[in-house]
Every structure is written in C-alpha cells, then in structure tokens.
C-alpha cells in the first residue's frame, strides 16, 4: 500500500504530449488544476468540475476522460495527451483542427479542446463512424456557442479526410 498524506504535497510525474513532466500535488488536487496551474498547460479548460460539460476532456492512456474527475496523483506514471499535443508541428493544424477552422466549429473556443480530444480518439477507433455515432460520442460535451451544427459538419468532413488518407 502506498500512502500519500493529506496535508502534504507529493511528486507526481507523467508523460504529457510525449514529454516527461512533474510537479507537486496534494492528494486532493484535481488533475485539471494540476495540468493548468502546476504544469502550465492551460489549453484544457474547466467548465463545471462535475463531469457533465466535457470541457476538461483529455486523453489518459489513449482514452478520453474527464480531467476534472481525476486526481493528479492518480495519473502518476500515465501517458496524457491534451489539446497542445494535437497539431503536427508549430504553425500547422491537424486534419480535425483544420476542418474545425473551415466549418466555424468554434466560436469562443472554450469547449473546443475537450471536443477535439474526444473526436481525435473516436475517429482513430471508429474511422467509419456515421453521423449518429459521432453525435452520440460528442454528446458528452456541451458547447454553448455554436449550436453544434458546424461541429457535426466539421467532424464529418474530418472523418472523410482521415479515411482518404488511410486508404491512400
């Protein structure tokens, strides 16, 4: 049994977007607070801290999950991926990001990081997903600005493009 005492801060290390990072966290520190304020990766946002809105969604060991429902100390040793890790290189956008831009699938951009992280994983696992499946998967996210129609359009086009690349 490994015990981390309540009142102290403990070393937490993990891989974030392919790079090793570490910082100190109390057992109660939420992963959202940790990656944003301790590590400084502020691209992941916090919209509700109770698991419903999806803004904080990141990939933990490859699967999308709510960072706000995770303790920082739980991900010690894990591989995390956040919105900062999606673009292939500085100044370029991934295919999904590009189609979001094209379809105006974001307005304020606050919900966007979470949606991208879900969609990225979903399209990897389900390249042939239809609109219904896409909608269902992304229903774990609330966007207050776009009314979703542009997001659906962007997601469908990104799926199509990714399929073309795969088949080529």
């Amino acid at each position: 049994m490994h015990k981390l005492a309540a009142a102290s801060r403990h070393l937490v290390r993990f891989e974030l977007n392919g790079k090793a990072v570490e910082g100190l966290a109390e057992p109660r520190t939420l992963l959202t607070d940790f990656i944003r304020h301790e590590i400084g990766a502020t691209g992941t946002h916090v919209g509700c801290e109770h698991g419903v809105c999806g803004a904080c969604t990141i990939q933990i060991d490859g699967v999308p999950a709510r960072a706000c429902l995770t303790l920082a100390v739980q991900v010690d040793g894990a591989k995390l991926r956040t919105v900062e890790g999606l673009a292939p290189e500085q100044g370029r956008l991934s295919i999904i990001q590009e189609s979001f831009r094209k379809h105006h699938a974001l307005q304020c951009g606050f919900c966007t990081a979470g949606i991208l992280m879900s969609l990225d994983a979903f399209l990897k696992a389900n390249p042939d997903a239809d609109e219904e499946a896409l909608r269902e998967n992304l229903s774990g996210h609330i966007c207050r600005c776009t009314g979703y129609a542009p997001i659906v359009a962007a997601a469908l086009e990104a799926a199509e493009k990714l399929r073309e690349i795969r088949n080529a």
Partner: protein
Amino acid sequence: MKPAQFDYLRAESIGDVHRALSEVKDARVLAGGQTLMPMLSMRLARPSSVIDIMRIEALGRIEEKGNAIRVGAAVRQAKLLAWPALKDRQPLLAAALPWVGHAQTRNRGTVCGSAAHADPSAEIPLVLTALEGSVEVSSLRGARKVAAAEFFTGLMTTARADDEMIEAVHFPVRQPGHGYAFNEYGRRHGDFALVACAAVVSRTRVRLAIGGVSDRPVARDLSGTNDEELAQAINDFAWSLEARDDLHATASYRRQLVREMGIRTIREARACIS
C-alpha cells in the same frame, strides 16, 4: 468547488484494500471516480482517505464463470462494452451499458462502482436485479456473495458493510428460450433515467425490472398473465413503486412511463426469444 483534504491510499492488492477498509475510519474506495469525484468536489462526501483500487491487476478481469459473467472491480464500463462476447453472452447487459453516461465517463467509470453507488436510476444495478445476478463482497472477515435483490437496500445504500469492498459482480449469462430487452427515457441523452425498463421473458415467465422510480431497482415477476392482465399487473407494479415528483418529472408521469415503456419492453423481449 474543491475537495476537502484526504489521504490517498494506492492499494496494490486486495489485501491492502481489506486492511485499509477495516483499519482506517471513514475510508472510501475510489474506483472510476465518475461519481465519487464530483461528490468530493462538492464536498458532499468527506472521507478521511480514498483507496485507489484501479492498479490492482486481479480486479481487472472479465471472465465467464459458472453460468455468469464475472466482472472485477477495476473493470471499466467501456472495457465491458468492448468485450467481444458480451452481446452473445448477455444481450441485456449489452443493450443497457451504452446508456450509462457518456463514452467519456464510461472510459473511467467501473461496473462495480456503479453497483456500489446504487443510484436508483443507474442501469447496471437494474440489469443485475433483472437478471438476478449477484455481488461478490469481501473483507478481512471473509468473502460472501449477495443476490442483487438483497444487495440494493435503498437509495445509495447496499448490503455492503463499511469494511467490505465489492470484488466483482456476476451477471447470469443468456438462457436459451429467453428474450431480453432494455429501454430507457431520460431528458437528455446520457442523463440518468427518468424511467428504465429491463425485461427478461421466456414462454412461461415475464420478469420486468424498473429503475429510476423507486429508491432502488425493483423487479417483479408478472408470470402467466394475458395481455389484459399484464397491463393490470404493470399498473399495479407502477403504483407500488412509490414514484415521487422531482424537478424533472412528476410521479404520475413516471407511472405512465412504467406502464407504456414496460409493456413495450416486454413485447420487444418476447420478439427476441432465442
């Protein structure tokens, strides 16, 4: 909205969990965290310690044992949903699981965590109840298996003693000559059910289980009744559930859903008797 302080205990074995639960006052198991974490952040729950069980390999297995699918305490809902044999071995479970929250919460939430939490609207306790499954709990004092009907004793309360953990839940596998169906209605997709219905039928038997209405999932055998009697029996059943009004629905609305969705679910189950 930040949690109060607690110790974090990372259990490496089932024995670790047993010891912690019996020795540490007010300790709580932390599984997928999809329910416990919001409660911690809202300070509705204030355990002295949380015991993270997710790194215990022995708890991570799905296996068919006897006539049941045994799902270990560290098995996430998404993993069970992706288990290739699921649809074949237990169609009711396969039908109900996609209704548990969203893909993103199923990636973390566990099957046993849902049983442990015993939300009256939750799908997994409902399926356990409908199928007459069981819950395997253990502690330093030993292990026991509790039938679902005895396990869920009320709102977020179960027959699990404070020093016990759930090690696994058992879902009986599909029986030949039986049909299964599941339906649910919630206000938004992914919301907790206002009413959920699970039906298990054979030529001689109709078993209907209802979630979201009473303080726990409730099943009733409506065996040997014709269509008219069935409607009457479901109405009786609906009234017996002591439906309540809340923000999202009235008691009478819930009864209506029980009646109409209940019948439909039974019909659908009959249509797929194998």
